[in-house]
């Protein structure tokens, strides 16, 4: 009996709009059934999330393009025309909802990674000692992960003029957005958090070698290394130990 009630009540809750009141039977059932109360809470949360996402406006010519496409398809399958229209609209609506959900969840996850990073205030810096020049602090934009106003063209423009006219491998365009940098040990990067592109070769360098004993090996060199991630085995020999 209760299962039947649950099914009916959930259907009723399902069909309610946000803010609408439900029947007395539903009120009575909800007071007794924890599962249905949970269902109702989840349903309400979901609707609020979806409701807060705002309206996605279709392009101005969406209607025209849709009609044109439908008209094109109508000649070949007139019998299923309206079914297709209907299922197409449902599919489109579902796709939009799923997309918005992904965006919302991703934003929520980012927020969790960097609490307090949204609408970040300008950095407050330590007092500067009297004998120090005041540090020049880069302007902080609302987002923590800002791609600097540097393009491959400007990078090359600033490359030292002593360099030969190297033929560069093609460089892809700068990513429009960047993901968050890893925040190590809970320490946020300081004022210098502006992301900048590294103008580097587009393709890793792979070479096959033969040593003096006839052994062959292949070495692949990454296009970019950070710090002293030596690209080949041997380390820097500036200060060998026990050799003077």
């Amino acid at each position: 009996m209760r299962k039947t009630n649950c099914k009916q009540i959930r259907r009723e809750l399902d069909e309610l709009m946000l803010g609408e009141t439900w029947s007395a039977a539903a009120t009575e059932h909800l007071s007794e059934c924890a599962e249905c109360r949970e269902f109702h809470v989840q349903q309400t949360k979901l609707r609020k999330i979806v409701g807060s996402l705002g309206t996605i406006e279709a392009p101005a010519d969406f209607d025209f393009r849709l009609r044109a496409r439908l008209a094109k398809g109508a000649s070949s399958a007139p019998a299923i025309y309206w079914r297709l229209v209907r299922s197409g609209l449902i599919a489109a609506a579902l796709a939009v909802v799923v997309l918005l959900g992904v965006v919302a969840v991703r934003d929520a996850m980012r927020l969790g990674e960097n609490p307090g990073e949204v609408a970040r205030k300008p950095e407050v810096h330590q007092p500067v000692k009297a004998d120090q020049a005041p540090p020049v602090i880069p302007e902080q934009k609302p987002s923590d992960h800002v791609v600097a106003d540097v393009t491959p063209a400007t990078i090359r423009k600033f490359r030292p003029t002593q360099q030969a006219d190297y033929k560069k491998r093609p460089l892809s365009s700068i990513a429009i957005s960047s993901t968050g940098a890893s925040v190590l040990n809970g320490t946020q990067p300081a004022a210098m958090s502006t992301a900048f592109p590294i103008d580097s070769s587009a393709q890793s360098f792979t070479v096959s070698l033969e040593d003096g004993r006839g052994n062959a090996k292949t070495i692949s060199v990454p296009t970019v290394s950070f710090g002293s991630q030596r690209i080949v085995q041997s380390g820097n020999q500036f200060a060998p130990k026990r050799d003077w």
Partner: protein
Amino acid sequence: MNFRRITSAVLLVSALFYQTVASGQTPAPAPKAPKPPAAPQVVTIIHRLNGLKMFRLLLRSEQVQSIDALDSAFNLMDDVHTNVIAGLAMDDGETIAAWLPEADVEFGPQIVGFPAPPKSQMFPGSVNGFFDGPDVSVIGADGKQVPAKYIGLDAATGLSILKLENKNTVSASAIKEEPVSSGDSVLLFGPEQVTKTRPVLARMGAIEGRVENVMPAPSGGIARFKVSAAKLSKANIGGVAVNQAGDTIGIIDGLEGNEASILPVALIKRAAQRVLERQASVPRPWLGVKGEAVAALKLDEIQNHGWEMQRAAALAGKHRGILLTSIVPGSPAERAELRAGDVILKVDDKDIQTADEFTWWLEQAGPSSSVEFTVARPDRPVEWALNVKLSGMSDQWSRVNWRSRFPSIKGFWLIDQGIETIALKPLVASQLGTTPGLLVVYVDPVTAAFEAGLEPGDVIQTINGEPVSAFRTSPNSDLYTFEVVRKKQKRVVKIPAKKK
């Protein structure tokens, strides 16, 4: 009604799924860390290597005899690798110090000669336009890239000194010798990768650390200190250590387990001063010996070097001196008639107890300086004073170990002529638009080969009319005629033999 129901069901399922994913992946908010100090004096250095330099790096680092195959897009003069590392903007607003890990590939075994070579020979590229000097640039705290000129390498510290072409284009702050004590909290600044997309995005990051061990310098001040931090990796080398007040306290020059070795500010300043005074690279002072501190040796190890039991025990009991285990032929040590088995007890009246102390005092003396050693010898009953004139060397390993790594053409060692080569197999030669032979990857600018016009990028076809593979050196040769291919054109380069 059905439509609404289906939509609701999908929404519900989607929301539950996303909520599950989100709650599973979102980490619990970390406790808010104290805001780190700004360190605008820390900049990012970009050091690029082209294909020719990469070959040289491989030659120095691997047992490479020949290149068998290359990827199809390879070009000798294209950039093939970019190193991204931190740099420290010094207080004059134009000098940058950075620990560039691949800097040694830019120089010859003698750091283009010592004393300083003429400026026209600093980098061969300035002469022939083919082999350029180090390709470095600087990215300031605002993300803007500014041009910089490579001044030189201080081989004792491994620091490269750059100069900005326009003063004050990056932020600088006073670099003072701040006190450093065990237990101090520090921040290690360095560029970190943000995305691996094309192009790679980077930004300045920082990790927290703690000073663990401060090693005093024999002459006062700090010689080195260690900082422990979680997640230290080689990517942190070159990073700049900053104290809680935002003052620079050093540069990471190595890793030992979970600890970073930090070069203190005093040594950074001294390195910059040495290079700027000379406007060229400064080699390490070189004696030409291998050895070990007596205090670190067992009695029988001392005896194995010719010491009698009683005297060996006396030496070991005093815990002082450096026992020389080998002498490099032709080195300042050999010229001063030092021998394996000798023990250097003092340098300029300073007692030596550890290898680090010996290194320290030699570096204080500097290359091309004279030092006075107090020496004990197994077959000589009394200690005596010995004057030794040190020489300079950027890369000791190069002089001692390189010979075996370079193609030997039946007794004719091209490395002896200051020429570094790597053999090209036919397929690779064809790909590079040349013919098989020995590709010249470096010519020491203070050699006859350089003066004669041999250039990196040349492919040696014959020497004295014989193919390089069949060449036999003539004992009486005082001139070598090289037939080379340069930019698809054949040329002849005549190089006087280097006199020993």
